[in-house]
């Protein structure tokens, strides 16, 4: 076994000729089968991460390495710089973890770095490296590019899902770009900020589970959301709260008009500067009852209280701030992208624009 291959199996990045990536990977597993013990290569997804800086590249590689433990995948991390020198290089490595009883499960990782006019060669190379008959998730790391749409479209061609994290977005227009991608391509978008809301949505849903509360969602009159933000001026940090409000409005059967207002409903946000971001509390007012959902950071739980004439005990849901790899795992464990995001996006954009204008 060559030292290079040994290093790849040990998790080190090994530089390979980009013309023979697949061949080298095949060699890696053939050698492992002959010399290694109880190693299984597994993949349920192709995950392609696009980074625009070496910092993002390293971070994406680490995040997907951790995610591959829960969702085995072929990871392809690409970093491009159209302004850089015209060159292209590739590396391979294996993300392995012990399954128990000495068995190892490994996922493959391929890194591609391209600059100058070589950037145009990246989409076909990536397409060739996708494992057939496996879904493809495309993770755009960081902010979305507003230029070079043709390049993005060609990369997204085979993708079954586009993953973004709107916490990095600068303005409501970035959300608009996600919405347009969902509308104009066959690639449904997924936003990690939407995934962050899973527990909040479950907690809010639990308020309306008791038969006596079921009809009251339609009488929603007021939504108040309090959230912590690390940078009060940064748009991306407000998106989680915007999504939550827009979702409640949409599911209550209400609409947001073009000016960002919701007829017969008051929707307010309070953003508090803090060291860590995240929604703290949601208050809902309905006809004849009110409900509060609160996060207790030190207990890592969400509690739900319903007041008024109804007798519903406090509900509790385990929660914690999820790391990005955990959010990606959650997203990849869904067989389909959550179509509700596309329902919520237009309302969230309108509310965001109204807030920006104010």
């Amino acid at each position: 076994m060559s030292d290079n291959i040994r290093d790849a199996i040990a998790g080190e990045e090994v530089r390979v000729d980009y013309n023979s990536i697949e061949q080298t990977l095949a060699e890696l597993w053939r050698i492992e089968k002959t010399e290694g013990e109880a190693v299984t290569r597994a993949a349920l997804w192709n995950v392609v991460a696009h980074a625009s800086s070496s910092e993002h590249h390293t971070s994406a590689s680490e995040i997907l390495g951790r995610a591959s433990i829960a969702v085995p995948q072929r990871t392809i991390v690409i970093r491009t710089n159209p302004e850089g020198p015209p060159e292209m290089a590739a590396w391979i490595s294996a993300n392995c973890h012990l399954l128990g009883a000495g068995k190892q499960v490994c996922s493959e990782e391929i890194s591609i770095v391209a600059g100058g006019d070589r950037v145009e060669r990246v989409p076909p190379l990536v397409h060739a490296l996708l494992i057939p008959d496996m879904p493809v998730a495309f993770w755009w790391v960081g902010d979305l590019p507003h230029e070079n749409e043709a390049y993005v479209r060609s990369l997204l061609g085979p993708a079954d899902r586009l993953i973004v994290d709107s916490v990095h977005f600068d303005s409501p227009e970035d959300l608009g770009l996600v919405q347009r991608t969902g509308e104009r391509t066959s690639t449904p978008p997924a936003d990690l900020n939407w995934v962050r809301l899973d527990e909040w949505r479950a907690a809010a849903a639990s308020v309306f589970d008791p038969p006596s509360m079921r009809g009251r969602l339609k009488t929603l009159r007021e939504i108040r959301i309090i959230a912590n933000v690390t940078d009060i001026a940064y748009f991306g940090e407000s998106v989680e709260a915007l999504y939550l409000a827009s979702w409640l409005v949409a599911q209550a059967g209400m609409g947001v008009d073009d000016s960002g207002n919701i007829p017969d409903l008051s929707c307010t946000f309070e953003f508090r500067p803090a060291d860590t971001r995240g929604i703290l509390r949601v208050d809902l007012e309905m006809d004849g009852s009110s409900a509060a959902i609160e996060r207790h950071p030190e207990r890592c739980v969400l509690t739900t209280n319903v007041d008024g004439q109804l007798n519903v005990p406090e509900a509790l849901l385990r929660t914690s701030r999820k790391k990005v790899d955990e959010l990606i795992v959650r997203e990849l464990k869904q067989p389909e992208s959550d179509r509700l995001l596309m329902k919520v996006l237009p309302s969230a954009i309108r509310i965001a624009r109204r807030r920006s204008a104010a």
Partner: protein
Amino acid sequence: MTTVALEPNPLREGLEQERVPDASCLVIFGASGDLTHRKLLPALYSLAHDGLLPAGQTIIGFARPDYGDEAFRADIRKACNEFARTKPVDDAVWENFAKGLFYVQGDFTEPEAYNRLNQKLTECDRTRGTGGRRIYYLAVPPNFFPVIAELLGAEGMVTDPERGGPYTRVIIEKPFGHDLATARELNRVAVTTFRERQVFRIDHYLGKETVQNLLVLRFANGIFEPFWNRQYIDHVQLTVAESIGVEKRGPYFESAGIARDIIQNHMMQLLSLVAMEPPVAFEADAVRDEKVKVVRALRDFPAGHESSSAVRGQYTAGSVLGEAVPGYRQEERVSPTSRVETYAAMKVFVDNWRWADVPFYLRAGKRLPKRVTDISIHFRPAPYPLFKKVAGVRTQPNVLAIRIQPDEGIALKFDSKVPGPTVRTAPVTMEFRYATSFGAEPPEAYERLLLETMLGDSTLFARRDEVETAWAWLDPLLHVWEESPEPPDPYPAGTWGPPSADAMIERDGRRWRRP
């Protein structure tokens, strides 16, 4: 009275848990027992941990020992810390869970105890929003079932939406009777108080992910069903092997034996799922209708020649996984002259269009070399032996192996050419392993089954006719075994059963698969 279906909660759309049960009072009869501590309460705690229990869900332990709420909670917390899938116990989750955990002391045969229980239930309806909804879990020996059912009915503690009240459901643990007569009697008693759709007969095998995956494998994939019949399948093997002995269950096992303990219930469920026709819908009665047809189609054992199709064994001293172990007759609270079978192997036929003359070989045993539950579908060989004259080619039939536990997964064995200048073949396997592909630990069977009961979905529970039909098929054989002067064939602990079991399958030119 007509019940009006509630409109769905729109906020549940797209969430992992789209259906959430309404809060109810779950009463566990036999709350001081092993099942409650090792399985039921840890499963309920894990459901709470995962946010799958509704606000207000209430659990009331009912048993004879004189506990208070606090002592019961302390005891259960300890059990959850040891046995829950989501251990160690999380303080915040526990605090909320424990608020809905109560204990009522009482004797199952005393009407006064039911009165106290009823008062507690009414109080919980008022304080916890449980709305009169009741689930009674009978984690008690079956002989208590008649008196519990009778007193629940007499005290007016059973209601039914079709009669204008909230629901009452009752969960019964196996064994569902000792034979056909006792099973019928148990069911007769049940329907004097409950309607059949209120009765949830729990067979924890049906709560296992891999068992449920049998339905998905067969009916969600287009490639298997065309081959799933006598034209392509040579035979099927089902193995339920345990490495442990009878542990502390000597007296129970002495009255049951492996056929009653495993074959009449767990194995019948596996056999039904493998052999059933596609149901018209994925709904409780549609699935169970098809399952019961399989059991109804089981061919009777040949009268007077039962031993040609059924073998029983009993383990003697030996070693399992490197440890010396005693024989069955030397086990605690087991008769030194016991003739109870700890191993059974059977050749059975499902006499219908799909499976005519395809043998299903079943075997279950204790103190076998390892714990494994496995189903293997053995396909017929290729119709023409194209390579028969080629030296170095020995083709083998394809096998689809479905591992139920442990190391759950599916493997397909087929022949492949060995690379080289000559034609040589070797069997290879394509494997899917749950742990490799999905990583996370699946929920415990009891978690799923308790949640399904709260939701009122009985798809994963045995129906009355399934139970009685299985007994009707097995009873004659058990009777022959009980009457026979011959003891079960001995087999040393740590082996795959008596030689007579090997002989039974080898007479047909086949061999047991090593699982």
